[in-house]
C-alpha cells in the first residue's frame, strides 16, 4: 500500500468527525446562533460515548450517549443565549471549559480501559476492489459513509424545505421572520440542539471508532478546526466536504510520517493543521467580497421581540 494511499484512508476517517461537527455548527450559525463550544461538546460526547461503548458494547447506544452529552451542553448554550440573551461568545467559551471538565468526570474511571467494541470497515462489493480508489473511498466504516448523505441532506433541508427557510431567515433577519410568523426562538433552539447532537456524535466517533480510548482532552483542538471549516465553506454545507478532507489529510500526514519513520519532528507536523488553517483562512477571507462570504447577518445577535431596531 502506497504512502499516499494509507494517508488518504486515515484522512477520510479523520475528516468524518470534522464533517459531523461542522455540519451541526453550520446549521446553528445559519439560524443565527454562534456556538463556540464545539470542542467542549465533542469532548463530553467522546467521554459519554466511550463510557457507554465500554459498558454496553453497543455502538448505537454509544452514539446516542455521545449525542446526549453534546446535546445537553448545547441546550445550556441555547437557554443562556436565546432565552436569556447572554453574550454568545462568553457562553460558548465557558462551555468549552465546562465540557472539558465534565468529560474528565464522566471518563475518569475509563481512562486506559480497553474497548472491546470494534467498528469494522464495510467494504462495498465490487467498488472496493478498484485499485487505490477502492480502499480509500469504498472500504470505510459507516460513519464515513454517513458523512456524505448528511451533508447532502442538510443542504436539501436548508435550501429546499420550509424548515430550511425558517432557519435561514432566523439567522438573516429574525425580526422580519418573526413578523412573517416564523417561531424564531424555537427554530434557534432546534438548530442549536442539532449542532450539539452532531458534535456529540463526532466526539463519540473520535473516542470509540478512531482512538478507541479515552484520555482527557482527547480531541486536541479539532472542535476549533470544525469551527474554522464553517467559515471556509462560506456557510454552505456541500463545501464542508472538500474543506474537511483537506484538513483530515494534513492531520493524517502526521500519523503516517511518524509511522513511516521519516525524520520529521512530530511538533512541526502537529503545528501544520493550525498554521495551514490560518493561512487559508486569511487568504479566503481576504479575497472574498463581504457579500460572498455568506455569513448570516444576524449571527451572534440575540433576538428580542421588544427591542427597537
Amino acid at each position, binding site marked *: 500500500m502506497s504512502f499516499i494511499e494509507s494517508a488518504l484512508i486515515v484522512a477520510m476517517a479523520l475528516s468524518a468527525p470534522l464533517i459531523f461537527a461542522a455540519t451541526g455548527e453550520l446549521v446553528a450559525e445559519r439560524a443565527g446562533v454562534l456556538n463556540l463550544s464545539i470542542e467542549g461538546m465533542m469532548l463530553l460526547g467522546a467521554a459519554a460515548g466511550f463510557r457507554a461503548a465500554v459498558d454496553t458494547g453497543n455502538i448505537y447506544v454509544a452514539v446516542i450517549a455521545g449525542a446526549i452529552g453534546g446535546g445537553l451542553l448545547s441546550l445550556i448554550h441555547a437557554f443562556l443565549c436565546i432565552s436569556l440573551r447572554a453574550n454568545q461568545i462568553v457562553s460558548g467559551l*465557558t462551555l468549552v471549559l465546562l465540557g472539558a471538565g465534565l468529560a474528565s468526570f464522566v471518563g475518569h474511571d475509563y481512562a486506559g480501559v480497553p474497548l472491546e467494541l470494534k467498528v469494522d470497515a464495510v467494504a462495498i462489493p465490487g467498488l472496493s476492489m478498484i485499485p487505490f480508489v477502492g480502499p480509500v473511498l469504498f472500504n470505510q466504516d459507516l460513519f464515513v459513509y454517513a458523512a456524505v448523505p448528511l451533508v447532502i441532506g442538510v443542504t436539501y433541508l436548508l435550501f429546499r424545505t420550509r424548515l430550511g427557510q425558517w432557519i435561514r431567515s432566523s439567522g438573516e433577519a429574525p425580526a422580519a421572520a418573526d413578523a412573517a410568523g416564523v417561531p424564531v426562538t424555537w427554530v434557534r433552539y432546534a438548530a442549536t440542539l442539532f449542532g450539539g447532537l452532531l458534535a456529540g456524535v463526532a466526539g463519540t466517533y473520535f473516542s470509540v471508532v478512531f482512538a478507541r480510548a479515552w484520555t482527557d482532552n482527547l480531541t486536541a483542538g479539532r472542535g*476549533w478546526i470544525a469551527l474554522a471549516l464553517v467559515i471556509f465553506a462560506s456557510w454552505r454545507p456541500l463545501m464542508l466536504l472538500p474543506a474537511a478532507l483537506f484538513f483530515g489529510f494534513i492531520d493524517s500526514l502526521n500519523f503516517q510520517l511518524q509511522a513511516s519513520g521519516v525524520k520529521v519532528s512530530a511538533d512541526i507536523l502537529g503545528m501544520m493543521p493550525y498554521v495551514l488553517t490560518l493561512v487559508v483562512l486569511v487568504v479566503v477571507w*481576504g479575497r472574498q467580497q463581504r457579500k460572498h462570504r455568506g455569513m448570516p447577518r444576524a449571527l451572534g445577535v440575540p433576538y428580542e421581540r421588544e427591542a427597537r431596531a
Partner: protein
Amino acid sequence: MNIPLRFERRTPGTGVAERVRHALVRVLAIFAGLVVGAILVEASGNSWYEAFSAMLTGSVGTVDSIEATLLRATPLILTGLAVSLALRMQLWNIGGEGQLLIGATAAGAVGFALPDAPAAILVPCMMLAACVGGALWAQIAAVPKARIGLNEIIVTLFLNYVALRLVSWLVFGPWKDAGAIGFAYSRPMPDQSRTGSVLGTGVTVGIFVAIVVVLMAGWVFNRTSWGFTVDITGGNQRAAAYLGFSAKKHVLLVFAVSGAIAGLAGCLQLLGPTGRLQPDLASGYGYAGILVAFLAGRSLGGVVVGGVLFAALTQGGFALQATGVPSALATVIQALVILFVLVGTAASAYRLRWVRTTQLHGTPGPLPVEKVVA
C-alpha cells in the same frame, strides 16, 4: 388565572446600586457554582464535604498552600488583565496561552544569550523580550483583524496550538537539556535570573510585579486620553470614526498591550516557579484568564480578586487527587461560576413586580393597583 407577578425590564442604572447588584450577582454565582460542584461530587460517588475540605486546605489552609495559591495567581492576574483590556475594545483575545508561551520563549532566548549578565541587567532584558514576544505574537491575529476583519477568536486560539508545538519542539530539539533525556523542559535559566522570595516567605516577587502592572494598566486605561479613546472606539466604531479615531490603529495597539502583558506572565513563570522553558508553563492560565476577565467585568481590581480566587480553586483542585475526585472539578466550578454570572446578569436586568389586582365594588373588571416590590 392571573398570576400577580410581572417581569419588567429594569432601567439601566448607574452608581452604587448598580455596583452592589454587580457584586451581588458574582457572590451568588460563586455560591451557586460551588453548590452544583458539590452535587456533581456526590453524583460521582464521593463525599462533597471531604472534597471541599481538601480543596480548602490545599488552597488556603496552610502557609505553604497560600504561597502556592499566590504563585498560581500571578500568571492568572496577568492573563486575566490581558483579556480584560482587549475586551474594552470589544476584542476577544483568546490567545493568552500562546502569548504567554511565546513571551517565555523570548525571555528564555535572552537568558541563554546572556548567561553571565548580572541580574540587574538580565532580568529587565528578559521581561522586555517577553513583552515584545507576546505583543508580536498577538499581532498575527491583530493585523488580519484590522485589515480584513477576520475573526480574532479563531486566529488567537489557533496560535495557542502553534505556540505550544513550537515550545515543545524547542525543548525536545535545540534547547534540550542534555542531562534530562525525555523530559519536556529546556536547559535551566541562568541562576541569577531566578527571582527570590520576599522577606523570607515563599511568596515570589512575581505577584508584586503583576499588581504593579494592573495599577499601571488602570492608570493608562482609566486616566489617560488614549484609554478614553479605546473605550469610545470599542463602544461605537462609527462614532469613533467621526471623531477621527482610527479603529485599525487601536486594534493593533490594544492587541500589542494585551499580548505583552500575557507575554510578561510567561517571563515571570520562567523567573519564578519553573526556571526552565517547558510546554506546561502555561497549563491553562491563558484560558482561565478569559474566565477571570469575565468574572471581573470592567473592574481591574476585580481581575486581581478573580485571579486569586480562581488560583485558589485550581490549587485546591490539585489537592483533590487524594480524595478520588477528578481535579477537573476546579475547572467545572470555574465554568459554572461564569455561567451563573451570565444567568444572574440577565436576570438582574429585570425586576419582579407584584401586581395586586383588587376587585372594586361596582366596577365591571379588575382594576390593577400596582405596587413595586423589588
